[in-house]
């Protein structure tokens, strides 16, 4: 099975405090630690497991700046066969539809049976997979937490739905699936693994290579525009307990007693 996995380089929220920059035009990027979007990493692991079981190849693709090459390379170190970077100034400022259009152009140049994305990324929109499927006129399923290959025409899949329940379906190939975290246990990538793929050439494609009009993507083509970033004033917020640890513990215990938190 020929599998394409779409990945994104994002600030690692487990490693960073995300703060709005001084003029509200973006987030503070000094000292940010970046990594591959967590959901995408599960998608790559799933693709590798399917390939190891059924044969074929795994290609990892990312839309982003030059720095995104490092996450493509990292996923190749996990075991993906090929990498592809879609990068150009004209792609900057793309909205979800723009990103999906760029990816569609790359899909059209290949011959993939299965396309995986992460269920969502740093902007929490969960949109690119569904848009890409619609553009390709392929069936789609989101929040996939189980994949079983039935044959070269069909998959059995599970979707995570409310309440921890799982919705089972059969889906025709080729299709697009967005992958939920927890579907597998992504393998660890060590320095040695990264070194092994350090010299592999990762092709970079721009709008010309993909047959895209530059004004159809990027900020020029974006129907949804981000105006600013801000920190919300939501309600009163928590009453912060201050003082020495001993004092805080004492105050907290009084509160817990009053609210029925201690039995």
């Amino acid at each position, binding site marked *: 099975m020929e599998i394409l996995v779409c990945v994104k380089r994002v600030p690692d*929220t487990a490693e960073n405090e*995300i*703060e*709005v920059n001084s003029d509200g035009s973006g987030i503070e990027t000094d000292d940010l630690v970046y990594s591959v979007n967590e959901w995408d990493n599960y998608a790559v692991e799933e693709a590798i497991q399917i390939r190891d079981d059924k044969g074929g190849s795994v290609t990892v693709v990312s839309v982003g700046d030059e720095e995104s090459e490092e996450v493509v390379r990292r996923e190749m170190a996990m075991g993906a066969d090929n990498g592809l970077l879609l990068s150009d100034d004209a792609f900057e400022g793309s909205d979800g*539809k723009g990103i*999906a259009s760029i990816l569609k152009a790359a899909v059209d140049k290949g011959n993939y049976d299965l396309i995986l994305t992460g269920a969502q990324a*740093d*902007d*929490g*929109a*969960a*949109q690119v997979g*569904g*848009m890409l499927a*619609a553009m390709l006129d392929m*069936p*789609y*399923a*989101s*929040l996939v937490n189980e994949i079983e290959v039935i044959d070269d025409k069909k998959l059995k899949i599970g*979707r995570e*739905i*409310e*309440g*921890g*329940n*799982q*919705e*089972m*379906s*059969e*889906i*025709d190939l080729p*299709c697009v699936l967005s992958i939920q*975290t*927890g579907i597998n246990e992504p393998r660890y990538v060590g320095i040695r693994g990264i070194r092994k793929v350090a010299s592999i050439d990762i092709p970079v494609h721009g709008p010309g290579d993909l047959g895209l009009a530059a004004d159809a993507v990027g900020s020029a083509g974006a*129907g*949804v525009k*981000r*105006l*600013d*970033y*801000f*920190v*919300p004033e939501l*309600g009163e*917020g*928590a009453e*912060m*307990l201050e003082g020495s*640890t*001993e004092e*805080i*513990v004492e105050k*907290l215990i009084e*509160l817990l007693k009053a*609210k029925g*938190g*201690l*039995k």
Partner: protein
Amino acid sequence: MSGQIFCYITYKDGVPDDSALELVTAAKQLDAGAAPTAVVVGSGIDALCNDLTASYAEVWKVDNEALAYPNAEIIRNVLLSILPSDGTLLVPHDTFGMDLAPGLSIKMDSVFVADVIGFEGIDGSVLKCVRQEYGGAVSTHVSCDIGGGAVINVRPGAFQPDESKSASGQTVDKTAEAGDLSTRRVYLETVEAEVGDVDITKEDVLVSIGRGIEDEDNIEIAEDLAKAMGAVVSCSRPIVDAKWLEKSRQVGTSGQTVKPKVYLACGISGSFQHLGGLKGNPFVVAINKNAKAPIFQVADVGIEADILDFLPELTEAIEEL
């Protein structure tokens, strides 16, 4: 404001989801003069549609046995067939809405905005929306021109339900216009979540842990505290993804909905998916080393501390009582 506003109704066992009335409020915030139309798709849904006429001036019904299970792949085609191209459709941003809406916006050639938590006015047909990024750490304003139609996913719980019930509307049967109901994704069955050794939905006091616990071996720290308090340990999603605790211990929209009296959120950042599983207005104590964690916006009491240091101190003090 140009096109008509439609609200997609999700429901279970004939009972509308809370979002059914929240979307009325959202529609009115989008456009103060809006008289939104409900869209209900399913099988045997007359009573449900009738109930909704109290809140919606019109309720569009698509009733067919082939639609008994809400398969987004089929319903996308139904909506494409019945909705006007310049309409604005509001959809709850839940596991169904995420499945349905992005692809629908492409098929309708409409703009799409995901997970909206507020509307801040419309200028001509240019709408200003409020969203969040980075798990709620920062908010953004986004604008889009909805003159050519829009699909907008609205966060469940972000708008108050409209309880006015003053629409006295009517049901309009759109079944004949539903179009092709075939699909390349066939629903088989729903596998119910496994019941764990402890039912966290019935507990009054929960010590809930998130990423801040850092390592599987540290879960003991939370268990010790829970034991001292007479509480039970629950968790957020990353702990289950890491397979450190059973799925039945997870609080959130993709886990359990809990209604404790007291909730200790320990090293939990507070994503809306997590908070969506916390109901009944409990007393929330947030302990987190990141002072900017979104959980502090919703907690009653906050403590800026590393849980790995703080929880053992708290346990010891409680044991000495």
